[in-house]
């Protein structure tokens, strides 16, 4: 790599900067804490003529998603961003976007869902739409926000995929924290994302297409089966696109990031910014001779089941950290990991820890505590426990 272009920016600015370099045709977005700075930065790029993007200052998130659906169906590259309540409001159209197979990229700045109202981070918003048919990527830091936003465009628009992608970053923790981010030159990003090749664009009046027909029991199921297949393709092509991104950036992405997993007997699994904190704890415990490791999940949908199985089989214990609860059922990440491990030859002992709801800090001592419980083999697969909660 040539000289690095490092910027000290927030995750929100990293997302907006990536969007600037992608230079989509249309951005429609509505401000909501903590996503707001993304819209603000991007609006400034538009106002200053730094991008030729047409921005739609919609009156709600519902209309934001509706407008990007319209724009993407028309044949434009379209993007948006939101958080929590905004996602909840647009969720009806979130499903429509994926079902119409529109390659929209959306930044989701993870925030707790109301009530009570809370503006801070957890993953309840992302989990609300985990079955919406969107590809979901989770970022550990601002660098990953920048990288995965760019990568997401290629993934969404891949001929075999044609699905929208949600790039998750932890609200405030990443979105408002200033960190060094190495950015690529504009032309490198432009070349990487290339031109959108629209299929069946509405604006092609010579080939009129009907979008959004009424699909009854004779066909709906078949169309859903196609979506299921598209997710399989997303899983298949992701490594190829990640490899191409590696070539331009030197940064390697995968479904999961194994951290000190070689001989790890006790493994933690998590999403988002907590992974950095966990890595530090892993290093510290490793220096104490403890065989701990981390499996960070980059791609939550499609869920990388083979990797989960490959990395976690025959470990002594696995603890899964969830930043969201599933009321009346197991926490979402735990449920998915546990389900994946049903099929492995040697199942590890498993434990579920919910943490960080509404922005509650995950501290190194919490991580250490969970690891110690794993090392003591003091885990019950059927018991959900809580980190950082007053009990």
């Amino acid at each position: 790599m040539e000289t690095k272009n490092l910027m000290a920016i927030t995750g929100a600015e990293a997302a907006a900067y990536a969007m600037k370099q992608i230079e989509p045709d249309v951005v429609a977005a509505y401000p909501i804490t903590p996503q707001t700075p993304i819209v603000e930065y991007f609006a400034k790029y538009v106002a200053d003529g730094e991008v030729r993007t047409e921005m739609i200052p919609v009156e709600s998130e519902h209309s934001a998603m509706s407008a990007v659906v319209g724009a993407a169906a028309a044949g434009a590259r379209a993007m948006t961003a939101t958080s929590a309540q905004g996602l909840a409001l647009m969720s009806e159209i979130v499903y429509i976007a994926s079902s119409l197979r529109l390659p929209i990229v959306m930044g989701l700045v993870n925030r707790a869902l109301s009530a009570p109202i809370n503006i801070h981070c957890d993953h309840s918003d992302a989990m609300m739409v985990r079955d919406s048919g969107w590809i979901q990527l989770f970022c550990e830091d601002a660098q990953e926000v920048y990288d995965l936003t760019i990568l997401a465009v290629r993934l969404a628009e891949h001929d075999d995929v044609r699905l929208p992608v949600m790039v998750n970053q932890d609200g405030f923790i990443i979105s408002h924290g200033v960190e060094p981010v190495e950015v690529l030159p504009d032309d490198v990003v432009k070349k990487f994302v290339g031109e959108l090749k629209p299929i069946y664009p509405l604006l092609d009046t010579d080939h009129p297409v009907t979008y959004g027909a009424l699909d009854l029991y004779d066909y709906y199921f078949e169309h859903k089966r196609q979506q299921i297949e598209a997710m399989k393709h997303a899983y298949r092509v992701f490594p190829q696109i990640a490899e191409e991104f590696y070539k331009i950036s030197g940064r390697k992405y995968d479904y999961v990031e194994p951290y000190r997993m070689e001989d790890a007997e006790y493994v933690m699994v998590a999403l988002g910014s907590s992974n950095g904190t966990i890595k530090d704890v892993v290093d510290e415990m490793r220096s104490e001779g403890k065989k701990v490791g981390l499996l960070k999940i980059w791609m939550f949908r499609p869920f990388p089941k083979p990797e989960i199985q490959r990395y976690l089989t025959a470990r002594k214990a696995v603890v899964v950290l969830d930043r969201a609860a599933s009321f009346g059922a197991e926490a979402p990440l735990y449920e998915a990991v546990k389900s994946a491990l049903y099929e492995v030859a040697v199942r590890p002992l498993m434990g579920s820890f919910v943490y960080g709801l509404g922005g509650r800090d995950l501290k190194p001592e919490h991580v250490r505590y969970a690891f110690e419980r794993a090392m003591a083999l003091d885990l019950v697969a059927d018991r959900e426990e809580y980190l950082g909660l007053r009990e």
Partner: protein
Amino acid sequence: MAELKKWHELPIAGLIVEPGTARKYRTGDWRVKRPVYDRSKCIDCMFCWFYCPDQAIIQEKGVMKGIDYFYCKGCGVCANVCPKSAIEMRPETEFVGKED
């Protein structure tokens, strides 16, 4: 429509990529009353053509040519808007066995 297609034989997203496929769909069999047209009374005002909700009036350059019974649902709007009573609504039962 012929046989129902399998999932991998369909365009994605429930899109209908061929325009106007509904033209293959016969709505004429909804009809219980049939408009019968009397050319001798017609003044080619085009009201029937303009209003027909099913676009079942056949015309050429403003000249009334007849009714397309493949689509006509028999609502009678054409007969009702006709200023010359050139269209009469007759029970479909009178036409059983006859071609459209």
